């Protein structure tokens, strides 16, 4: 299969390339960018005039709810959502049911995703068996099965000795440990501590739930030399600790979710369960610090934190509602919105959802590390073609994901989002193509 993407604005954040050019794809790889030789006979031509031709997005945090929660998301629907959102690679956390703590589970998940060929799937293995925080998993075996790192998802390890050993062990083999910094005891509330939670009578998660956990993790990184990726920071104080840790040269990276980047606890309004999220939405100062940190590179990547939740689990009182929101189909638009607000050039904006997350993944990607998240001749043809000028109204029912809950539904925000995906290619195959463009 040979595909020619013609006349698009080719943006490759890693190299800084930003020019109108053609992109030729053959046998799953990019064979030419720019002048395409006359003897390249494409089976398929995609006219990308007026569109941006970018690397496929790389999302470091998306839950697919399989195995174990098939009623809330199925691999196929969620990978379709990824493709519809221009996401060509995603990292899923290990808190499936059962948790991803055995190679067989990872093999099966990878196999099923590969058969669908909608999006590349990179699972994180459980750091401890059953995420129970007691016994280490067989990390070498899990890595052979395709795990790109190890984490605890939303289940912090309370026993510091176990956490220290987990980091020591992972450091031995150079595995990256992915941790969301949250103290298990202080983090039991349902909304961020602050004026809104106090007023609404919601139990709070204080900022120190994040910073105490961060301090512990950073001390253990100093002691063990383990490489740690900090998932979904939520606070200005957390950003300050991360900035200092990076200045010190500690081997840490971090991401932030689209929710924390755009929303605050004030958006909870009258107990809107769509705003029940983990980490909880914090205050304006926290959001501003997160936005600035993503812009200056302190925070490496922007993630969708995609977590499909079904209707029954959301139409409950705020504290009982299941945390989470759909996000795969919103990642690009919310990145563009943030980038425009921050006054960033398009390549810099796109870097946070393409080349930077690939840098976070590093060697764990194997041979893909040199070309995923980039557009390079000879590299894999994971491509996202989108119309930056088209706006759209988020209508939950029209989303491909089985998770229909999003804080960004037009009905709630009254705001249109910028950027609409026209086509997504994974390994040179069209995984998604928009129906005839209809202005939003």
């Amino acid at each position: 299969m040979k595909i020619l993407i013609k006349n698009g604005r080719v943006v490759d954040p890693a190299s800084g390339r930003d020019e109108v050019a053609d992109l030729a794809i053959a046998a799953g790889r990019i064979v030419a960018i720019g002048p395409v030789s006359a003897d390249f006979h494409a089976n398929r031509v995609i006219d990308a005039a007026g569109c941006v031709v970018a690397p496929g997005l790389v999302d470091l945090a998306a839950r697919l709810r399989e195995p174990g929660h098939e009623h809330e998301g199925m691999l196929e629907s969620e990978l379709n959502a990824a493709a519809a959102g221009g996401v060509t690679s995603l990292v899923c956390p290990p808190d499936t049911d059962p948790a991803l703590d055995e190679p067989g589970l990872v093999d099966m998940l990878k196999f099923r995703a590969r058969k669908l060929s909608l999006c590349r799937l990179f699972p994180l293995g459980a750091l401890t068996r059953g995420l129970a925080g007691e016994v280490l998993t067989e990390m070498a075996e899990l890595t052979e099965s395709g795990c790109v790192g190890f984490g605890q998802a939303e289940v912090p390890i309370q026993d510091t000795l176990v956490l220290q050993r987990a980091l020591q062990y992972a450091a031995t083999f150079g595995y990256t440990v992915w941790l969301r910094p949250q103290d298990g005891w202080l983090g039991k509330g349902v909304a961020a501590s602050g004026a809104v939670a106090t007023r609404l009578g919601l139990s709070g998660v204080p900022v120190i739930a994040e910073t105490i956990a961060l301090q512990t993790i950073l001390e253990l990184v100093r002691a063990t030399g383990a490489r740690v990726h900090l998932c979904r920071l939520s606070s200005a104080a957390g950003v300050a600790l991360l900035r200092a840790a990076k200045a010190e040269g500690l081997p840490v990276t971090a991401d932030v979710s689209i929710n924390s980047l755009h929303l605050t606890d004030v958006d909870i309004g009258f107990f809107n369960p769509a705003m029940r999220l983990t980490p909880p939405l914090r205050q304006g100062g926290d959001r501003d610090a997160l936005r600035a940190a993503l812009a200056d590179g302190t925070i490496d990547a922007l993630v969708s934190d995609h977590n499909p939740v079904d209707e029954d689990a959301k139409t409950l009182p705020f504290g009982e509602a299941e945390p989470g929101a759909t996000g795969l189909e919103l990642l690009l638009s919310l990145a563009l919105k943030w980038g425009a607000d921050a006054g960033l050039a398009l390549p810099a904006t796109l870097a946070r959802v393409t080349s930077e997350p690939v840098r976070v993944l590093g060697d764990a990607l194997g041979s893909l590390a040199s070309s995923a998240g980039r557009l390079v001749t000879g590299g894999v043809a994971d491509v996202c073609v989108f119309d930056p000028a088209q706006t759209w109204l988020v209508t939950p029912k029209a989303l491909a994901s089985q998770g229909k809950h999003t804080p960004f539904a037009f009905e709630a925000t009254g705001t249109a989002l910028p950027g609409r995906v026209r086509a997504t290619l994974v390994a040179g195959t069209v995984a998604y193509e928009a129906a005839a463009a209809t202005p939003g």
Partner: protein
Amino acid sequence: MLHKRNPQLNAHGELIHLLSIEGLPRDVVTHILDTAGTFLSVNDREVKKVPLLRGKSVFNLFFENSTRTRTTFEIAAKRLSADVINLDIAKSSASKGESLLDTIANLSAMHADMFVVRHSESGAPYLIAQHCAPHVHVVNAGDGRHAHPTQGLLDMYTIRHFKKDFTQLSVAIVGDIVHSRVARSDIHALTTLGVPDIRAVGPKTLVPGDLKGMGVRVCHDMAEGIRGADVVIMLRLQNERMSGAMLPSAGEFFKNYGLTDDKLALAKPDAIVMHPGPINRGVEIDSAVADGAHSVILPQVTFGIAVRMAVMSIIAGNEA
């Protein structure tokens, strides 16, 4: 983000549900208190009934136990001639198997006109109000730590009865503020009615500093908190707070924050002492104070019925 209209008001700013005192205009609060005044005399009649809710069905829907509050709502509804159905669903909706909204849908099918809801989760009455038919009214009878608006209103009625003017008052609220829906409703009502000095008094575990954002002065010292107060509102200390990490013991709490005649002497000579009940004698309040000349705890209960009659009759008369 776009914010929807306060869900308890209709497009004309009239009260259709009572979910929280927060966000209610002062004239709406005053109107409820004035209306309650007219119902007080009904309670003194030989036939204690008016026909305002005749033919209407009021469902008392208590997902959390409360004999006292449920009873006062039942009396209020019956004095308005409504048919009252009591449902004690002590377990939370989730553990019961049927979802909260399924319960509401079923009861709506029985032609309920009003739900009086108590629930252990903050915000549950909002969910119900958002999902029930437009002609159905919801009264929040206490949700989690969030609000207990009829208690707040009856407290305001009591204060107005004894003190007349709100704008010169010092009010001390003492005890477990952080977990108290009564305290939140009182604070919103007091600020709405123009009380210039509201103090929240208790140890840092129960009165954290961020309560300041609600417009109160935070005092951790009882003497400082109560000195010169016109009104002292004592809160009930829940059993589960009496020992553990919040407080070491009920005895130590009483020693520091329990209201005794000695401590009350620091307040104004004509101070009134209030309590939402049921009282824990010897924990938050000494018997001598609870039964003493400053106590208005029993008038609060009497006024509570009139206030609940006022709330139910007003919201039943307004359309969504």
